[in-house]
C-alpha cells in the first residue's frame, strides 16, 4: 500500500485483502479449521500402588514420612505423529505452552486421589498421534521470564514458584515431614525444590495410538510412583539423610541430590 493516509475505502479494501490472504493461508493448512478434538492428560500419584494421600503417614524403608505438597510444571506439551515415510522426521503438534500441576486438591482425600488430576487441551487438530511429549519444568526460553511479567491467572505469575538466585522457576516441589529418629514425631522437614535450566527434563511417551476424531476426545493416563523417586538404582535417595534441597548451585550436595531427584522423577512417570 503506497498511500499513507487511509481513507475509509482503502481501509475496507485492505482489510478485505488481508482477510483473503488469511483465508488462503488457512487453506494450505493440512487441517482445516473446524476439525478439532480434545486431548486429556491425566496424572495419578501413587505410593506402593495406592493413591497418595497428602498428610497421611507412610513408611519408606522403615522411615515414616508424609507428603504435604507436590507440584510441578510441565511445558512444551506436544503430540507427535508419524510421517508418511519413515525416514522423514515426525510431525509435532504443540498443544500447550506451560501448565502448573498442583496436586493439593486431588490428593487431599482418597476419592479424588483415585481420579487423579486431568489437564484438558482443546481445539487439537484431529489425527492419529503416536505419542505425547512434554518437559518437566519450564523450558529455557520461557524460564528467562519472571513472575512480574504475568498477570495473576497465569501459571508463571506466582513469586512463590520462582527462585531469583537461580534465575529459574521451581520446576518441582515435593514437601512434607519425616521422622528420622523414630520417636513418632515428624521431626524433620522434607523439602525438594528443583530448578535451573540444566534440570529441565523432556519426556516422550510413545505407546501407540492417540486417536482424535472430530469433536471427540482421547485421554492419556500417566502415573507417578512416589517410591520410585526414592528408589532408583544408582541414583536412589536415602530419605533419612537426603531430605532437603533448594538446588542451590553453590552447594554441591544440594545440586547432586536435586539431579538424582529429577532423574528419578522422570523414571517414576509411566503410562497407567
Amino acid at each position: 500500500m503506497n498511500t499513507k493516509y487511509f481513507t475509509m475505502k482503502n481501509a475496507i479494501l485492505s482489510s478485505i485483502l488481508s482477510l483473503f490472504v488469511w483465508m488462503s493461508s488457512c487453506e494450505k493448512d493440512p487441517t482445516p479449521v473446524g476439525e478439532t478434538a480434545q486431548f486429556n492428560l491425566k496424572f495419578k500419584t501413587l505410593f506402593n500402588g495406592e493413591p497418595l494421600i497428602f498428610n497421611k503417614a507412610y513408611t519408606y524403608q522403615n522411615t515414616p514420612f508424609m507428603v504435604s505438597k507436590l507440584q510441578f510444571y510441565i511445558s512444551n506439551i506436544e503430540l507427535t505423529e508419524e510421517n508418511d515415510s519413515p525416514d522423514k522426521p515426525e510431525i509435532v503438534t504443540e498443544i500447550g505452552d506451560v501448565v502448573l500441576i498442583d496436586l493439593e486438591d486431588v490428593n487431599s482425600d482418597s476419592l479424588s486421589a483415585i481420579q487423579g488430576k486431568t489437564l484438558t487441551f482443546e481445539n487439537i487438530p484431529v489425527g492419529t498421534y503416536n505419542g505425547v511429549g512434554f518437559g518437566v519444568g519450564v523450558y529455557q526460553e520461557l524460564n528467562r521470564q519472571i513472575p512480574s511479567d504475568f498477570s495473576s491467572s497465569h501459571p508463571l505469575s506466582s513469586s512463590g514458584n520462582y527462585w531469583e538466585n537461580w534465575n529459574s522457576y521451581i520446576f518441582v516441589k515435593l514437601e512434607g515431614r519425616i521422622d528420622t529418629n523414630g520417636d513418632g514425631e515428624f521431626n524433620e522437614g522434607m523439602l525438594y525444590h528443583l530448578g535451573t535450566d540444566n534440570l529441565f527434563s523432556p519426556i516422550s511417551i510413545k505407546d501407540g495410538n492417540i486417536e482424535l476424531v472430530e469433536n471427540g476426545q482421547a485421554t492419556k493416563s500417566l502415573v507417578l510412583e512416589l517410591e520410585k523417586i526414592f528408589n532408583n538404582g544408582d541414583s536412589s535417595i536415602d530419605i533419612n539423610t537426603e531430605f532437603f534441597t533448594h538446588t542451590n548451585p553453590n552447594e554441591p550436595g544440594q545440586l547432586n541430590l536435586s539431579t538424582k531427584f529429577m532423574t528419578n522423577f522422570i523414571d517414576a512417570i509411566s503410562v497407567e
Partner: protein
Amino acid sequence: MICLLIVFGACKDDKQDPKVEGDLTDVLYAPVPYVPEIPASFPPLEVPEDNPLTEEGVQLGRRLFYDPILSADQTVSCASCHPIFSSFADPTRFSFGVNGTQGNRQGMALINAGFYQNGLFWDGRVMTLEEQALLPVEDPLELHEDWDNVVEKIKNHPDYPERFRKAFGIENVNDITKELAVKAIAQFERIIISGGNSKYDQVLRNEAFFTEEELNGFDMFFDISADIPDAECGHCHNGPLLSTNEYFNNGLDNITDLENFPDKGRGLVTQRLFDNGKFRAPTLRNIQMTPPYMHDGRFSTLEEVIEHYNSGGHYAPNLDPLIRPLGLTEQEKSDLVAFLKTLTDTNFLNNPDLSNPF
C-alpha cells in the same frame, strides 16, 4: 443529527422543573482516569473491569477511608487502625473498635494490597478489596455500624452525594449504595503503593551499596552463599512485594493437636485440618514501620521475630519444612535485622493522594 438533538432536548426538559428530589444531574460527570505510579519491578496492578481507577473515585475513597462517618459512634475510621505513618498497619496489638471492643488479630499494613491476588486478611478469607471493605463496617470488633445507616448518613451529607455523582455518574442521591462506597474505598486502597525507592531496591538497581551487615543479612535471607547460614526467609517472603502471599505454619504456637490452635487461621477458611494454624506470609516491605508483628502482634521488635525463626519454632505435623533451627550467631541475627531495615521506603508519605484529606 437533528433527531439526536431533539432527543437530547427532551431529556433536558424532563429533568428541569420540577426537579426530582435528590437530583444530581447538574453536577458534571466526567471522570478522569487515575494513573498510579507503579515501581518498575512490580507485577501488573489488576483492577476489576467494573471499577476502573479515576481521580474522582480515588478522592472519594480517600475521604471515606479517613472519615469516622463509617462507624456507629463517629469515632473510628479505617485510618484509626490503618494510619499512614505506620505504613497503614495498626501500631496497636489488638485495636479497639467502637465501644472499646477489642479485636483478636493485628491490623496489617495495607501497602500494595492491590497486588495481592491470593486472598486478603491473615487467612485469605476474601479475594478482593471491594469484598473486603464491606466487612469492617459491620464487624462488631471494628466499626460496628449498619451499612444502611452509613448509606443514610452519606446521603444526608453536604459533600458526599456530589462526590458519588462525580465518581460514579449516579443521577440521584438515592442511587448511593454500599457497593459504590466500597468501590471507592477499594480504588483508594489500590493506590497505596510503596516500593521502588527503598535501599534494597536501589541496591538491586546498582544505585546504592549495602553495608557489610546488610549484605550479610541479604545473603542469609535469600540463601545466596554456601559459606554462611541459610535463614530460609526468602522462600516465603520474596519477589518485588517481598511476599509469596501463600499460607504457612511458621511455628508460632505450641500445640499438642492440630485442633488446638488458639486461632485456626487458614483452616477456618478451607476447613482442612492441616491448614489450621497457617497464616498468610505478609509483605516485609516497610516492616520496620509496622510493629507489632505476626497475626496476633505477639512480637514487638524485629529482634524477637528473628529469635523466633532462629529457634526453629514449635513442632506441629504441619510445621513448614523451611522452619527449622537456624543456629545463627548474635552477629548474624543483627545482620538480618539490618537487612530488614533496608526494605523501608517512606516515599509514599509524600504522595499527596494518600494523606488525611480532612
